[in-house]
């Protein structure tokens, strides 16, 4: 019924030969001509390993131990290194996530493009190569001028670099393009154009695309079919609209619930627990420990694929139970009460200018956060939002203007501030991998600030407060003796929050606290922060680039661009009726979980 697939993966197993631990376990997939397959999953689920295997590559320490990968009529796993080298770049191509590291910084981009052509098409002469280069640059929406071709990668913007990388991937008209979240750094119009180009190239030459991503919202905007992986195995494969609207696997359902929605139509819910260690081999459904629908049978055997529709399969024996549930529109997020004006400002920033050396970053910032209120500071990277957060925390001292806490002006450097002020403002960092000292146990990390407070609590008191802090972030006492590397990203971030809470702060400065986390974990952390705020009457400054999250955490929003506050107001108002162009662009930039009917066109 269907034409010969471009890519077919059959029962592929990739494992660590020494231990037999499976990173990719029994995965079968096909991609038809002109098709875009979205390969989604959270970090550690094996999607990157799988996508690299499609190029015939496995990382050191891993090996494809059984199964087949066929691209067109070639079987990649049976080829030797020399043959693979020839096929990579012409039969299969790869677009990496970070364009800056994909391009050789020492060569002009024109040279690099021609290199790709001449390596695979030896009989093409210089003029012929030039024609191809010009054509492909038009395809990806770049100017075909000499000056572009003669520039070095660092002279181009991130978006331009990414487009060059994509041009390199499509110039030889490959059968299969593997893309590792390549459009995340592009603006919407470019993104749309690049994706259209990719689809066109696919259709013209009957090629296929595997698009790897952790963001289901992105998948919904471009993929025709979706494959969701969990812990090395496939969870669900099917047409994008079906999978995203009527997920058959409880994991996919949970994942969709965890995707923040800019319109705030849904309450954010995370998936409790965490994914099993990569490579744990159990003869059971790996999602069962976290699954709300799990029954004893789920723990008896690996679930077989169950057909739930045309080309739609889920590896779950409970699909019938799941079928009833839809991604609920739900009651939506209740509109927040904006703290009354009269309650007074906890934090007031007045006419703040900041910079690094002679480079100005922030201009005339004036903001205030009322007691018990939560302000989201939203802006793109480089807009100065983190600098502002650091000024507040006393980590960045190069500013003029004043920051005052409850009416008292704060010294610039944290060390010059009174202990009470340092305790009142607690900073939670973006990256939980680096904000905890790897040489300290969780207990020691959480207790650390207590040793430097005025009161000097004794051992028993410290112990009691650590327990309470762990409790308030829903971590079991079992983690106390653990070290950070033994915890998952979400757990680490909760430890960091517990450390902040232990000194009873009044203001929590959260700097992109969820950007290093997976969606399902992000939702859990956001829920936690919101609950803490309500229960403890904490004020919060929530710094983020992700507008979709704002609904769930903040009642007011301040949009910052190029170091200036563009607009500020209640979340609902700003998102619904942005007054500035930049806010409108930011709002439009947010990927949405929308029906994908148009994507197939």
């Amino acid at each position, binding site marked *: 019924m269907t034409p010969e697939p471009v890519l077919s993966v059959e029962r592929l197993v990739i494992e660590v030969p020494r231990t037999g631990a499976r990173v990719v376990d029994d995965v079968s997939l096909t991609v038809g001509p002109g098709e875009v397959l979205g390969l989604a999953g959270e970090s550690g689920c094996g999607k990157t390993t799988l996508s690299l295997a499609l190029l015939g590559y496995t990382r050191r320490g891993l090996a494809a131990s059984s199964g087949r990968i066929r691209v067109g009529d070639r079987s990649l796993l049976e080829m030797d290194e020399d043959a693979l080298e020839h096929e990579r770049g012409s039969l299969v191509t790869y677009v990496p996530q970070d364009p800056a590291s994909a391009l050789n910084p020492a060569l002009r981009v024109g040279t690099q493009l021609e290199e790709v052509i001449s390596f695979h098409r030896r009989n093409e002469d210089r003029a012929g190569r030039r024609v191809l280069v010009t054509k492909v640059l038009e395809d990806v929406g770049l100017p075909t001028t000499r000056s572009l071709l003669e520039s070095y990668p660092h002279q181009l913007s991130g978006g331009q670099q990414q487009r060059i990388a994509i041009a390199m991937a499509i110039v030889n008209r490959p059968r299969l393009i593997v893309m590792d979240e390549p459009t995340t750094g592009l603006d919407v119009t470019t993104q749309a154009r690049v994706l259209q180009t990719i689809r066109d190239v696919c259709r013209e030459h009957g090629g296929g695309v595997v698009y790897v991503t952790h963001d289901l919202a992105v998948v919904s905007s471009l993929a025709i079919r979706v494959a969701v992986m969990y812990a090395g195995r496939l969870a669900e494969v099917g047409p994008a609209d079906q999978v995203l609207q009527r997920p058959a696997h409880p994991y996919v359902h949970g994942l969709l619930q965890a995707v923040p929605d800019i319109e705030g139509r849904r309450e954010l819910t995370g998936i409790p*627990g965490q994914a099993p260690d990569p490579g744990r081999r159990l003869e059971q459904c790996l999602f069962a420990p976290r699954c709300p629908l799990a029954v004893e049978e789920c723990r008896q055997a690996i679930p077989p694929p169950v057909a739930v529709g045309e080309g739609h399969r889920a590896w779950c024996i409970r699909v019938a139970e799941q079928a009833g549930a839809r991604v609920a529109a739900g009651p939506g997020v209740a509109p927040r009460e904006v703290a009354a004006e009269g309650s007074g400002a906890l934090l007031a920033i007045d006419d703040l200018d900041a910079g690094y050396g002679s480079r100005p970053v922030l201009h005339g910032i004036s903001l205030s956060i009322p007691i018990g209120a939560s302000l989201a500071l939203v802006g793109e990277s480089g807009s100065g939002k983190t600098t502002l957060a650091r000024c507040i925390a006393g980590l960045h001292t190069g500013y003029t203007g004043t920051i005052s806490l409850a009416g008292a002006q704060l010294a610039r450097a944290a060390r010059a501030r009174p202990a009470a002020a340092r305790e009142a403002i607690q900073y939670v960092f973006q990256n939980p991998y680096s904000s905890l000292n790897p040489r300290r146990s969780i207990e020691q990390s959480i207790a650390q600030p207590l040793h430097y407070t005025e009161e000097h609590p004794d051992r028993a008191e410290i112990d009691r407060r650590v327990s309470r802090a762990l409790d308030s972030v829903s971590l079991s006492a079992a983690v106390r003796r653990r070290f950070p590397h033994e915890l998952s990203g979400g757990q680490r971030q909760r430890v960091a929050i517990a450390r902040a809470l232990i000194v009873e702060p009044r203001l929590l400065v959260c700097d992109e606290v969820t950007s290093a986390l997976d969606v399902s974990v992000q939702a859990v952390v956001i829920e936690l922060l919101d609950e803490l705020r309500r229960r403890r009457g904490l004020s919060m400054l929530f710094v983020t680039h992700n507008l979709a999250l704002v609904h769930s955490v903040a009642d007011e929003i301040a949009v910052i661009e190029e170091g200036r506050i563009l607009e500020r107001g209640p979340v609902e108002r700003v998102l619904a009726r942005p007054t500035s162009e930049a806010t409108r662009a930011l709002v439009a930039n947010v990927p949405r979980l929308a029906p994908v009917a148009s994507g197939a066109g």
Partner: protein
Amino acid sequence: MTAQRETAPPAPRRSRALWLDVLARTCRSRRGQVGLALVIPIMLIALLGPFVAPKSPTAFVGLPYAGPSSEAWLGTDGIGRDVLSRVLWGGREILALAVLATVIGIVVGTALGTTAGYVKGALDEAIMRTLDVALAFPQIILALLLVSIIGPELWLVCLAVAAIHAPQVARVARAATLRTVEQDHVKYAEAFGIPRRRVILGEVVPNIISPVMVETGLRLTYSIAIIASLSFLGFGLQPPSADWGLMVNENRIGIQQNPWPVVTPIVLIAILTVGVNMFSDAVARSALGIEAPIAPPSMSGSDDALGGAEHVATEVPAS
């Protein structure tokens, strides 16, 4: 079976101090074992030798440069003392001085390097440029200069060798510190106003311990070589004390009559140096191996293409 594991992450494997892990891993590696096999006998000779020496190291037991006999297994030296006994006595100082000089050099160098790297600015420049000047002198000549001015005192030899090490150690420690201070846990400590000294001791030093350990092994090798050279040149222990370096010097004219008083100390010093070097190399390798999975992964939400590779490759077999 998974039910009770669900709440708790994988059982703690590496809850010991990092340096213990590195050492344990080193001792399991082939290279480390060979290194130890070379070093331990020499250490035993140096430390226990005096207790088992058949004769006094300063007693005259025969004619000068007599060959090996049942009376003196390695023969006698230039003034008729028992070579075996002198060898057994002569390793103590060299070993003690080398270890002491290394420890002082490491401590001082680490203190300077972490301070420079953490405080940055003018103090950093001042410390590092001063150390650069010290580095510009040929090391052994510097030590010789000091010792020849002040005199052959053991404490001075020790300090001179430590002073040779400190600048190099400081550079290593500073480089590692610069990486560590960028970590958010250091920023957290600063934001909480924790005193600088405590930040260095609590946040920085524990995280630069592996490069410092590697450096320690390397420095110990150099210490042995330098101290042996100094005592060969007559700036270490003075006659009639027994000392390996000194023995080589005293007896080199009689090498044709009885080579043992020269060859034995040389061989022992060589084995010790090679062994320590191998061991420290093994330490370096295991420190790298242990460090990798702890290093923070990329900041992005998804696992990046190759950066995450080492994680799977190294973490999985360990579990």
